[in-house]
């Protein structure tokens, strides 16, 4: 570090308390100009809180923020933007019903005439190779395109520091590469980047420095190039990482769960239907379905779980039994359980206790209803068992589902279904937002369930997860499913191409492209 150049950003002893938790406990680190600095940590480690304070959305309870050698107070996001801090949020802060142009205008502090703004947008898009039509309404755009809006918006302010909060969780591998290209170019131009993620290989590929947080405390600042993914993961969770243990000499049985030519109609305005999906899962097999969000995963899960009925009973069969015309309750009775992606409101009811939520899906298989009356003792006992076996942090079976953190609720839901010992389990995003330790436990539970002869379908956007967990993989794109491929015979690049729809991606981009 050149001594004459001050740090772009310097945090000293930043502390933030919420009722009951210390989200950040005396966190200190600094970012140089042009440095890509990773902020690593589990969910709940305090990364988001920390960057919200840097961006002025929240105020620290203690500590100081230094900017280019000066002590500053970030009283609100406007102050931060004035200094040259741009932020791309994890959950995009976009207005669905408005156009790209209007969304970007809202992120500008100065009043800029629409025409000048549009010219500025096109200039930034040209310079960094980002393609967007300024006049499209956001609700019609893909997730990758939405992120580009946020990036363009941030770049228009000529930022000196760009904060990216988990930017790649929704992108295809190709989109990730494109994004990294933009970020590297920015860094060369002298812009510092604070990059929040828990994807370790990305951090190794992109970042110069990594600061690791655990439970609100800084545990280490290291050079990701000299660390392994494993060593960084262990620093994040503060314990050694467990590998998935598979039984030796595992043999897959007969085709158990067969789906043939399954189609759904369009569900809603922005949903993609599935068309003529066929696959089969053998006893003991875990099939992974990869795909970028919004390519029909919701429709597929609903069609498999029984929320949407198939046209023909034989479209979905389990051990030869046709289930296609049965609803969720009927399919559960036959041993088909499902976990949808949305936890609160779909997989569980926030205002119900855990025991009540248990009754909703486990009543038949675990005999919790006798002659139409609920046996609440049985529900409580079973819920207690889920809480213990899956290490759910909850006050007990009477705790409201809505009071649990996202990760804990997910552990409860996964446990509730897995302990029913289903013959077929369909799960969407099993470890989304769950910390690495708990994710490992959930993965192990899935592998153990498969070892007992169940057929499992995992729908996920996390390729690493699918590659680690599954025996076979298929890719869903625009409602169509690719043939199943044994894991180990395909490369990440091939899967990435399928996720982007190979030719489809290029064609789609061209239709959105605008003359520069």
């Amino acid at each position, binding site marked *: 570090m050149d001594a004459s150049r001050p740090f772009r950003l310097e945090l000293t002893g930043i502390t933030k308390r919420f009722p009951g938790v210390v989200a950040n406990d005396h966190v200190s680190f600094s970012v140089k100009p042009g440095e890509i600095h990773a902020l690593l940590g589990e969910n709940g480690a305090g990364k988001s809180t920390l960057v919200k304070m840097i961006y*002025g*959305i929240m105020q620290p309870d203690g500590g100081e923020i230094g900017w280019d050698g000066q002590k500053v107070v970030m009283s*609100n*996001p*406007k102050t931060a*933007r004035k200094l040259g801090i741009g932020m791309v*949020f994890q959950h*995009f*802060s*976009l*207005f*669905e*019903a*408005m156009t790209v142009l*209007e969304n970007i*205008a*809202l*992120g500008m*502090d100065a*009043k800029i005439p629409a025409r000048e703004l549009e010219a500025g947008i096109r200039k930034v898009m040209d310079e960094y190779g980002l393609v967007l039509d300024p006049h499209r309404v956001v*609700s019609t755009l893909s997730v990758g395109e939405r992120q580009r809006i946020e990036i363009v918006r941030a770049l228009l302010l000529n930022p000196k520091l760009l904060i990216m909060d988990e930017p790649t969780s929704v992108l295809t591998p190709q989109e990730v590469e494109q994004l990294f290209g933009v970020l590297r170019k920015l860094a060369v131009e002298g812009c510092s980047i604070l990059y929040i993620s828990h994807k370790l290989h990305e951090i190794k590929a992109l970042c110069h420095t990594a600061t690791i947080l655990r439970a609100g405390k800084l545990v280490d600042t290291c050079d990701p190039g000299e660390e392994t993914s494993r060593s960084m993961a262990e620093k994040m969770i503060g314990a050694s990482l467990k590998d998935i243990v598979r039984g030796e000499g595992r043999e897959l049985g007969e085709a158990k769960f067969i789906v043939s030519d399954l189609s759904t109609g369009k569900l*809603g*305005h922005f949903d993609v239907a599935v068309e003529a999906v066929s696959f089969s899962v053998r006893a003991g097999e875990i099939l992974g379905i990869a795909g970028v969000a919004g390519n029909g995963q919701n429709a597929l899960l609903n069609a498999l779980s029984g929320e949407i009925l198939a046209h023909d009973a034989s479209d979905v069969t389990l051990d030869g039994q046709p289930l296609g015309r049965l609803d969720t309750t009927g399919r559960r009775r036959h041993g088909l359980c499902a976990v949808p992606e949305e936890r609160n409101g779909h997989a569980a009811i926030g205002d119900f206790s855990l025991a009540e939520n248990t009754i909703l899906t486990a009543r038949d298989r675990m005999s919790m209803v006798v002659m139409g009356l609920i046996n609440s003792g049985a529900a409580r006992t079973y819920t207690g068992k889920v809480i213990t076996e899956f290490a759910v942090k909850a006050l007990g079976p009477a705790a409201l589902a809505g009071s649990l953190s996202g990760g804990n609720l997910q552990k409860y839901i996964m446990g509730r279904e897995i302990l029913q010992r289903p013959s077929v389990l369909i799960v969407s995003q099993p470890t989304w937002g769950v910390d690495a330790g708990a994710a490992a436990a959930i993965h192990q539970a899935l592998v153990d369930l498969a070892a007992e002869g169940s057929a499992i379908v995992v729908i996920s956007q996390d390729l690493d997860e699918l590659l680690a967990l599954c025996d076979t993989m298929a890719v869903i794109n625009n409602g169509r499913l690719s043939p199943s491929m044994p894991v180990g015979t395909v490369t990440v690049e091939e899967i990435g191409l399928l996720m982007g729809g190979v030719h489809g991606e290029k064609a789609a981009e061209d239709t959105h492209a605008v003359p520069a």
Partner: protein
Amino acid sequence: MSPELLIGIIITLVGASTPILFAALGELVAEKSGVLNLGVEGMMLVGAVICFAVTYNTGNPWLGILSAALASAAVSMIFAVLTLGLSANQVATGLALTIFGTGFSALFGRAYTGKPLALFKSVFPDALATHPLLRAVFGYSPLVYLSLAMVALVWWFLAKTRGGLILRAVGESDISAHSMGYSVIGVRYAAVAFGGAMAGIGGSCFPLMLTPQWVEGLTAGRGWIALALVVFGAWRPIRLLGGAYLFGLVMTIELYAKAGGGIAHVVPSQFWAALPYLATILVLVLISLRQSSNTSAPACLGKPFLPTN
């Protein structure tokens, strides 16, 4: 149909629509910012009674209109403090506001029951305002022209100005607007106050244009029609104008049916009186049938915003 009758119908229609148009425009702005204020009827009644009292005592209708706007805006602030400041339920609070407005206007208006008020007539020269054809253009109360100007103003504000963009953004996603540094609560206070003032002006149309005598419940449920109109107009000022005049037409049919002969007398007069409200229900049913195509409703409508998140 004679031209005189047609002009008569147009003039009656425009007059009947104007109070609803004012109130609905105000509510549209409030709803665009994400606040559902069901207290429109109450605020209109407060505006009506304050306007009556001030105009009766000063003889100046402009002063009456201004007082009505201020009084209703003040009443809307009760709603704003409860729902925005204390995150109370907007539906319940809005209903309570209507009950309050009804009671307040009945109590305050007792002293004026049966007293006459001069109508606030056209300010154009008599030659223009009495000529049969020109009457359809120049024969209205200044309030009518004000309402049309407000439609244009609200449209321009929402569609063309940065302030309007921010207001729509707040109604579309309060959390995003907050994270960008916009004052969600501040914008909503302003929008509710505007909604209150407009409801007050709408209320003042009753004593100044329609029934120049104080009677309890003067607005006769027009505030509810204004609420339905916002949905009918799909939160767009220009469509709102069309909707208001359509409702005005239905109300005019009621008046002419009561006065006319023939078939109108076969049908009980209660039916004609109920017609505007039946039309309201019908319109709401039709709109909910094709809800999916109607994406212009503000996404955060009626949801409380807690800035700590």
